[in-house]
């Protein structure tokens, strides 16, 4: 197991990259000893986050979220549907998460990536169970019509912390969402109103309104390695460390989800540190 010798400037540079590829764990351990990660972040700091609202003009609500290089685009389209018999006052949210091959070299066309259905399910569980959206707000005419919100999230660049970015983009898209104005036409069906309201049709909802978000969930993904907790890992870090932990808290500091699939044994003290 040869360590690179400092033999002149150029050869040291080449050696570092090669060392990073050949012995990734040792490379990271050397950095962790100094309490820093290779992109010069201190261990507990997350990467730079940006959110852009309204990225998709044709959708009712959309957002583009970036954490470091991980990019997710979320868009919401509203359609009217009849609510189910058990919940005549409630609308419905359908969440779908796509990982097209553009996002990462490990995703190949012809089949969904391994991580995609897992993140999709986690995301829908978190959003629905956190009570962020009151489904009763999505109701139009009780028992006859309610909104169905189709939330699609596309991963454009997968560089670690997929769940965090997806949740952020979903919440941002919901905050940007404007429910369109509709009215009841003669057949008893709901149609979208035109700009100049026709006089014989009463709009069911008067103006475009925003949806209320309560208790917004926030999440953080960390990797654990021996005694070190590294926050917000990149894809490279995620692939070499075997323990990944995602904690989701909502705005009243309630734990929405703690997702730790497998990995090394985590003692209580570390769990407290993370939360």
């Amino acid at each position, binding site marked *: 197991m040869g360590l690179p010798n400092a033999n002149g400037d150029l050869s040291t540079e080449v050696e570092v990259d090669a060392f990073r590829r050949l012995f990734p764990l040792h490379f990271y351990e050397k950095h962790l000893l100094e309490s820093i990660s290779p992109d010069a972040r201190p261990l507990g700091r997350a990467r730079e986050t940006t959110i852009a609202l309204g990225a998709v003009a044709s959708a009712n609500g959309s957002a583009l979220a970036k954490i470091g290089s991980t990019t997710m685009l979320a868009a919401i389209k509203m359609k009217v549907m009849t609510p189910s018999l058990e919940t005549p006052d409630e609308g419905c949210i359908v969440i779908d998460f796509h990982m097209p091959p553009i996002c990462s070299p490990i995703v190949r066309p012809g089949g969904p990536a391994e991580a995609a*259905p*897992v993140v999709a399910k986690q995301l829908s569980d978190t959003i629905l169970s956190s009570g962020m959206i009151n489904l009763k707000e999505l109701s139009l005419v009780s028992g006859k019509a309610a909104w169905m919100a189709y939330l699609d999230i596309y991963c454009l660049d997968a560089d670690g912390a997929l769940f965090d970015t997806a949740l952020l983009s979903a919440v941002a898209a919901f905050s940007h969402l404007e429910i369109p104005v509709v009215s009841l036409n003669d057949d008893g069906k709901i149609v979208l109103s035109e700009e100049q309201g026709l006089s014989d049709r009463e709009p069911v909802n008067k103006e475009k309104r925003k949806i209320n978000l309560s208790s917004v969930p926030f999440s953080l993904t960390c990797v654990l390695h021996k005694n070190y907790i590294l926050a917000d890992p990149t894809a490279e870090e995620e692939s070499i460390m075997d323990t990944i932990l995602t904690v989701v808290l909502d705005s009243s500091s309630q734990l929405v989800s703690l*997702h730790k699939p*497998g*990995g090394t*044994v985590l*003692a*209580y003290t570390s769990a407290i540190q993370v939360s």
Partner: protein
Amino acid sequence: MRETAMEVDREDGRSQNQLRPLACSRNILHRAHGSASWSQGDTKVLAAVYGPKAGTKKNENPEKACIEVIWKPKTGQIGKPEKEYEMILKRTLESVCILTVNPNTTTSIIVQVVNDDGALLPSAINAACMALVDAGIPMKHLAVAICCCVAKSGYVILDPTKLEEQKMKAFAYLVFPNSVHSVLPEGSLRVEGEPIENGIITSVTHGIMSVDDYFYCLERGRAASVKLSDFLRRNLQQQSTDSSKAG
């Protein structure tokens, strides 16, 4: 603070911390290299292990053994929840098995749900562990899985049935390593100063609960996992003495 010994009415008359009757049998499928059936009350899961087979899958590290999990639901098509269970099971078993013993091999674990009456994922994890033992795959320790629910009023119950799970505001699946009876001196098996059995291998939660509720669940789950590990140990010892008599 929590009231101890709160009388909670559970439909089947169990107390808060009581688990359902456990039953486990190994070596039930003859063609599989290892197999086990695990039932907790009415929830029954069957697990089969085939392996190690040559070659790893595409994106996996060839210097380690690879574990592949296939989850078969009782009815319906395979969808996202099944994929999620597969991933959780895979990660959990990867951390329990010693992967460096047979590099560049794949071990397949097939989980078939026979009946789902609550606490499905923990039963599957327990069944898979027993099947791995039956197949003789080297493992560092066993994984013991348990489900804890938090109700709206704040009390915690263990091992819920399906009806109880649906009524609860949150539940958590927790997997702990089993308790260790060791010949080595005390100090050597500690992780960060705590005995190894106090750690968590896997934790998956659904629904909102406060952080304190979560820690309380952990403590309860930890206590119950000791009982589960005793059951596992007795079960394994009993069956191994039977087979040695027959052999």
